[in-house]
């Protein structure tokens, strides 16, 4: 016990004697450990966030957008023939039983004015099924009707963020706002939904009838994205298959002749998987940085320990002459290497937590400071210290005391 404290004292003393050298030596470990901590924290935060975001899309959610699928994912191209039409939506609605709800959607951004307040926000055009598909309830008022849609009525419902910015505490239902200078009557207010994985605020939105947005605000003919809800979770694959067949038939795509689909379909599950895969790729990257840093850090420690053994050859000789055994010397240098590594590890944990918090703040994620990561990082750095400190320590312990004493 006394020996242990003494060895620790000697180890830390020799580390503080060469502060800058120790810091530079520990830098690899610092970066490596910071990566480990940040990886685990960020990965976890991103995963949780992605999960809740895609859950918030709605139940049994299916999305169809124009453009072919490429190996790297979706190509949101607007090629000549890659368009979805209102009749596609109608066909899905009337012909496919496995689909419970469907809605054409279109999206743009615009300046919105109420009184002397103005706010720039996303304008979402949707049909009556839109809130059912997105599982998004209203906190007050009502959603617009199918009649409103067909008549391209100038009505809208507001997301919470828009309400806050334009109305403050005032009740917006029944009030008139101006979107691109066109007056719209507010008929309802959406529930609060919260942020998304990409840091965007889902509540920063105005939903208006699809036809109104298409004709009055955007002036196009094409459907942006079709969103739909399968009748049940089990029916998602069937719905997917049936929509695919229907759209191929309608768009006259001959798969047998090697023609590509001119639309892409994503289900909630697929989007979740894709997000997880991205998070995985990201974490592989961070893990490899962590691995390389720890390796480089370990080599740095080995190097500095070898230098230290050489510098202190005479000291080793003296210690041996007065009775230190090989194992005492080995323990001393091993403890020094581990102390160096653990100090680096501790600084690295601090840095990692800082990175994690910063990233989380910018991305709007909840910080998930997980103690496993910190513990793991600590253990990792200690292991690196042992692994790379062992050879120098062994070398020191094998010195011949007579030669070590003679060393100049």
């Amino acid at each position, binding site marked *: 016990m*006394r*020996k242990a404290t*003494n060895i620790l004292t000697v180890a830390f003393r020799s580390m503080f*004697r060469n502060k800058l050298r120790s810091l530079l030596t520990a830098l690899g470990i610092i970066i490596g450990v910071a990566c480990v901590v940040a990886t685990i924290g960020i990965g976890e935060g991103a995963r949780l966030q992605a999960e809740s975001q895609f859950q918030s899309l709605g139940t049994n959610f299916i999305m169809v957008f124009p453009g072919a699928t490429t190996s790297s994912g979706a190509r949101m191209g607007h090629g000549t023939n890659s368009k979805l039409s209102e009749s596609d939506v109608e066909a899905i609605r009337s012909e496919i039983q496995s689909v419970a709800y469907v809605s054409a959607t279109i999206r743009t951004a615009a300046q919105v004015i109420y009184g002397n307040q103005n706010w720039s926000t996303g304008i979402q055009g949707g049909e009556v099924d839109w809130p059912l598909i997105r599982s998004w309830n209203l906190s007050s008022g009502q959603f617009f009707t199918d009649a409103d849609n067909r008549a391209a009525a100038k009505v809208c419902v507001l997301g919470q963020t828009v309400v806050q910015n334009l109305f403050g505490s005032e009740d917006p239902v029944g009030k008139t706002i101006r979107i691109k200078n066109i007056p719209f009557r507010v008929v309802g207010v959406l529930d609060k939904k919260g942020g998304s994985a990409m840091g965007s605020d889902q509540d920063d939105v105005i939903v208006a009838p699809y036809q109104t947005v298409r004709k009055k605000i955007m002036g196009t003919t094409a459907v942006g994205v079709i969103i739909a809800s399968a009748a049940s979770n089990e029916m998602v694959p069937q719905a997917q298959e049936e929509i695919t067949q229907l759209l191929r038939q309608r768009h006259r795509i001959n798969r047998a002749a090697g023609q590509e689909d001119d639309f892409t379909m994503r289900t909630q599950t697929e989007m979740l998987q894709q997000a997880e895969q991205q998070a995985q790729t990201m974490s592989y990257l961070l893990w490899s940085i962590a691995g390389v840093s720890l390796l480089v850090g370990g080599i740095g420690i080995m190097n500095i320990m070898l230098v230290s053994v050489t510098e202190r050859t*005479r*000291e080793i*000789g*003296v*210690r*041996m*002459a*007065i*009775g*230190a*055994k*090989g*194992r*005492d010397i080995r323990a001393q240098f091993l403890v020094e290497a581990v102390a160096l590594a653990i100090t680096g590890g501790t600084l690295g944990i601090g840095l990692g937590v800082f990175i994690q918090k910063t990233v989380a703040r910018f991305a709007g994620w909840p910080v998930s400071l997980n103690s496993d990561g910190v513990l793991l990082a600590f253990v990792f750095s200690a292991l690196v210290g042992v692994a790379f400190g062992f050879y120098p320590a062994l070398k020191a312990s094998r010195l011949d*005391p*007579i030669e070590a*004493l003679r060393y100049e």
Partner: protein
Amino acid sequence: MPAPVIEIRDLTRVYKMGETEVRALNGVSLTVARGEFVAVMGPSGSGKSTFMNIIGCLDRPTSGTYILDGVDVSRLSRDERAEIRNDKIGFVFQNFNLLSRTSALENVELPLLYSKKAPATTKERDARAKACLSIVGLEGRSDHTPSQLSGGQQQRVAIARSLVNDPTILLADEPTGNLDSKTSDDVMSVFQRLNEEGRTVILITHEHDIAEYAKRVVVFKDGQVLTDTPVVKRRLVAAEVSR
């Protein structure tokens, strides 16, 4: 005749350097009794340090026997020799070999770190080390580091360190080799006083006037004992001080 502390029979030490062999010790026999003060002399390369390293259990003889304090130590393992060194031998080196940037007290305490018989509490260990520092007249310098001490003082700290485990023999390889003559006398007076108090001292020196502090002079030549004689006109510190 008191019981011998050191009994050496036909000691040889051969260094193999590739094809050639260097017989650094070539059949040395010597007995040292408890309480003796032996000076080892001889030309450079005659095997004095080699001999000292074997007595000090830093090295093993190629052949021959070495009995220290009744125990045959000529065939012990590395670790066993480390224990003997810690327990029974106090080393003093020519170049002091104190740990730099480490206080005198901590330097003196160093052997306790590797000792099984060391006191358990810091307080007791400090007290022991301080007692050793006061034996060499440095009680006030506990907190000084080697760079804050003169050569003579550093050597006295080294002597204090050699005493801390109450060794059976004190070994010194040219302890005054790096010191001027006045300081050499100071250091030798410490050895002489320790010897008066009953400690066995063996030291190597090149200087006759240093050897005259001892009671017996052994001269080496070509790895063998050339002469082994008592000191006739012994220098006594007490006499010199009154002079």
